[in-house]
C-alpha cells in the first residue's frame, strides 16, 4: 500500500488543507488521535514556513507501509530563498521574522524523523516521518 496526496501551498487556506490531508492519511493508517494531531501540527508549522519565507511550495504526505511498520512521510518543498544557517534555524527561539522560532525545532520534536536540506538560493526541503506505535 502506498498512498500519496499533494497539497500546493500558496495561501493560508492551503496550510489548513495540508494539515487536514495529513490527519486523514494518518487516521487511515490507524494512528491514534493524539498522533494524528501531532502530525497535523508539524505539517501546519512547516507549511506556514513555506508560505511565509518562500511564498509558495508544496507538501506531500505519503503512507509508507513496509513489512514491519506503517508510517506517514511528509515532504515539504519550496524553491524559496533557502536557509543559510540550518543548525541555527533548528534552535528554539531563532527567528528571522519576529516569530517564536519554534516551528522547525517544534516539528522536529513532534515527529520521529526529521531532515532538512536547504541552502541560500536552493530552496528548502523538509522531510519528516512518524511511525505508528505497536503495529
Amino acid at each position, binding site marked *: 500500500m502506498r498512498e500519496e496526496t499533494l497539497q500546493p501551498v500558496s495561501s*493560508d487556506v492551503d496550510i489548513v488543507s495540508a494539515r487536514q490531508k495529513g490527519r486523514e492519511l494518518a487516521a487511515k493508517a490507524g494512528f491514534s488521535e*493524539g498522533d494524528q494531531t*501531532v502530525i*497535523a501540527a508539524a505539517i501546519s508549522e512547516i507549511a506556514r514556513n513555506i508560505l511565509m519565507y518562500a511564498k509558495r511550495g508544496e507538501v506531500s504526505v505519503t503512507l509508507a507501509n513496509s513489512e514491519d511498520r506503517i508510517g506517514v512521510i511528509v515532504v515539504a518543498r519550496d524553491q524559496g530563498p533557502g536557509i543559510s544557517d540550518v543548525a541555527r534555524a533548528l534552535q528554539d527561539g531563532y527567528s528571522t521574522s519576529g516569530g*517564536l522560532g519554534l516551528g522547525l525545532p517544534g516539528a522536529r520534536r513532534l515527529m520521529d524523523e526529521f531532515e532538512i536540506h536547504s541552502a541560500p538560493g536552493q530552496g528548502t526541503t523538509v522531510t519528516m516521518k512518524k511511525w505508528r506505535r505497536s503495529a
Partner: protein
Amino acid sequence: MEVPILKQGHFLIASIQSALTDADLSQLREALVLRVGKLRARGVIVDVTALDVMDSFAVRTLRDIAHMTRLRGAETVIVGIQPEVAFAMVQLGLTLKGVATALDLEEGLAFLDRFTKERFERA
C-alpha cells in the same frame, strides 16, 4: 470562516466552529478587541474546542487577544483545549503564559464571574 461572537451579560463568547486559517484568527483578534470597547465587556471567553490544531500562529494570536483585551479592561479565558491538542502544543514548546485557561465553557464562565466580581466590587 468568521467566528461568531455572542454577548452574555458582561461577557463576550467567541466559539470557534471549525479549523481556522491565519486570516480567520487575525480577524477574530480585531473583532474581539473592537467589541470589548463597543459592548463594554468585562470578560471574554474563546472556546477552542473545535480547533483541530494549535500551532505557533494560533497560540500567538490567542496570547495577543488576551493581552490586547486586558489592555481594554477585559479578562480573557481560553476554554476547551483538547487533550491531544495540549500534548502537541507542549511538544512544540508553545505556552499560554499569562493567559487564563479553563476546562470548558462552564468553568470559563465561573472563572470570569469570580474574577470580575473581585475587580469591580472592590472598587
